[in-house]
């Protein structure tokens, strides 16, 4: 029997589900092995009978907790999809402001109608079985992990920093160009796409499991980036990592 899969989203842009939809023909081939029962990005209809739940977005309201716990209770396997779900991501920028300030900034005078609270990744509320990192996720990685699960293999997710993929790509190191970069501590798997396209790493895939944060901070400071610049960059995606609730 084909495993039944469902997609859900919380606070996020649905960019990760869009990446899945962007697999196009590849997605159709993968769908010959699974049955999608809920995926509002690409289909109508919904069923509560599913084995694997792919969940995008972070938990930002008290009432989200009941919903994610309900999804958890129905799913045999829960996969966090994308930075908001895995590490809290950009939603956590607001965690460094008082609720009055961010509510006013986002909702103006209607702020008091919204029950928003500090943003957090899924694993702060429910047990998460697997994580697909990135903002957005890498669709080839999504396809590969799904295939590995279907074949009964343990999915392979890199545990080394983005520097490895920059070296493979032959990129000029941002630090050699006098620029800042979080590739030194960020989990690889994106193919160093941001650096390859001329930007720097923002840390969207979260901190690599054994990253040396102290050394990375020292290197940033020694390269001329002051405390505030480093702090702001770290808070962009890694707010929950650096200041967990």
């Amino acid at each position, binding site marked *: 029997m084909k495993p039944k899969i469902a997609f859900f989203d919380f606070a996020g842009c649905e960019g990760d589900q869009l990446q899945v939809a962007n697999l196009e023909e590849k997605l159709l*081939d993968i769908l010959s092995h699974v049955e999608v029962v809920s995926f509002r990005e690409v289909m109508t209809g919904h069923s509560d009978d599913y084995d694997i739940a792919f969940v995008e977005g972070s938990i930002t309201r008290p009432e989200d907790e009941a919903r994610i716990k309900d999804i958890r209770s129905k799913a045999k396997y829960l996969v966090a999809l994308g930075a908001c779900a895995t590490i809290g991501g950009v939603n956590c920028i607001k965690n460094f402001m008082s609720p009055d300030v961010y509510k006013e900034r986002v909702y103006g005078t209607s702020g008091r109608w919204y029950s928003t609270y500090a943003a957090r990744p899924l694993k702060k509320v429910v047990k998460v079985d697997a994580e697909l990192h990135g903002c957005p996720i890498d669709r080839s990685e999504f396809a590969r992990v799904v295939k590995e699960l279907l074949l009964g293999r343990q999915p392979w997710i890199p545990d*080394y920093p983005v*520097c*490895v993929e920059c*070296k493979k790509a*032959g990129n000029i190191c941002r630090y050699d160009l006098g620029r800042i970069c979080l590739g030194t501590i960020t989990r690889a798997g994106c193919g160093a796409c941001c650096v390859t396209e001329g930007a720097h790493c923002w840390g969207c895939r979260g901190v690599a499991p*054994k990253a*040396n944060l102290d*050394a990375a901070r020292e290197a940033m400071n020694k*390269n001329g980036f002051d405390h505030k610049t480093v702090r702001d960059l770290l808070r962009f995606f890694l707010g929950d990592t650096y200041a967990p609730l």
Partner: protein
Amino acid sequence: MTAYTVYLEQLHAMLAAWSKEHQVYVPTAVEGGYFDFKPWREGVEIAFDYDLAYNTLKRYFLPPKEDLVVFDLAAKTAEMVFDAPKQLLFGVHPYDIRGINQLDQIMETGAPDQYYLHRRDATVVFGLTPMRVAETAFWSSMGAGEVDRGFDLFWTKTGPSTFLVEVGSMRGEKMLLAAGELTPASAGAREAARKAHLKIMEMGRSNALNFDWKQVPRLLDKCWNSPLWQKKAELCLACGSCNLVCPTCYCFDIREEADELLQKGVRFREWDGCMLTSFALVAGEHNFRAKALERYRHRYMRKGKYIYDRYGELGCIGCGRCVRACTTNIANPREVFNTLWEASQHED
């Protein structure tokens, strides 16, 4: 050694001819004042005076990712795949040729690496005498300032538009003379090339090992418990950059991926590095180099001793790429070896 004089105005036609059969790569300026090998085509300016190619040239023989075997899950069949495009590396410095020579030997020892050897055989190497030394480089004191093999031709710029071209193989000579006869080099031209070589060796001496490189293996023998390893390792990002830019590091990991219908698949290899935390992770979650200190020390032992013990030369050619690549400035073999040497001089 047979040598010819070639003029700059002859070179363009040669490049055009060679690129008909080969993908030609040449050193050229890239962003940030650095240099790298890029595909040659009309309009690409060759930086004859480049100091160091930013990326290691091993990628032309041992690509960052390379398919090895294609397999069919239903039919239970597997087949090796070889992709060895004809390529020409024009302008490779002697220390990088040393690196290639060492890889050649390593890859042929034991079970010969067929993938590497196919690519190597399909690659023509034209050497070039350096005209500048990168500030991180120390090859002149690592015995890597000159080569007598490993190239098909060796070019030395002896004047504003003159080259002395030494022949290293019949393949190289045939390619050089393909467009017509050339003037054999005069005694004076050979002397000019020798002077150019002496000049660059002298320039390289400003950044040197403070002792004979042949002492490095014996020095490391005594330094297993040096406090230096821990001190440096505290700043290690475990990013593997020093491994991956190294011309003589060759470790790789092998993985597989199935197609979307789960019928066929490919086994491939990707660069790996002993500075990455999971490099030594084996079954049962056991990691035989779990500590940063152990990984950091291992790299120097590898470069300065283990390779020497097996092949009679150091695993470091002094190109200085790791020095540049390390964000926390701890990957400098010259500095580490000099510090250990200095400390050993004060022992009884």
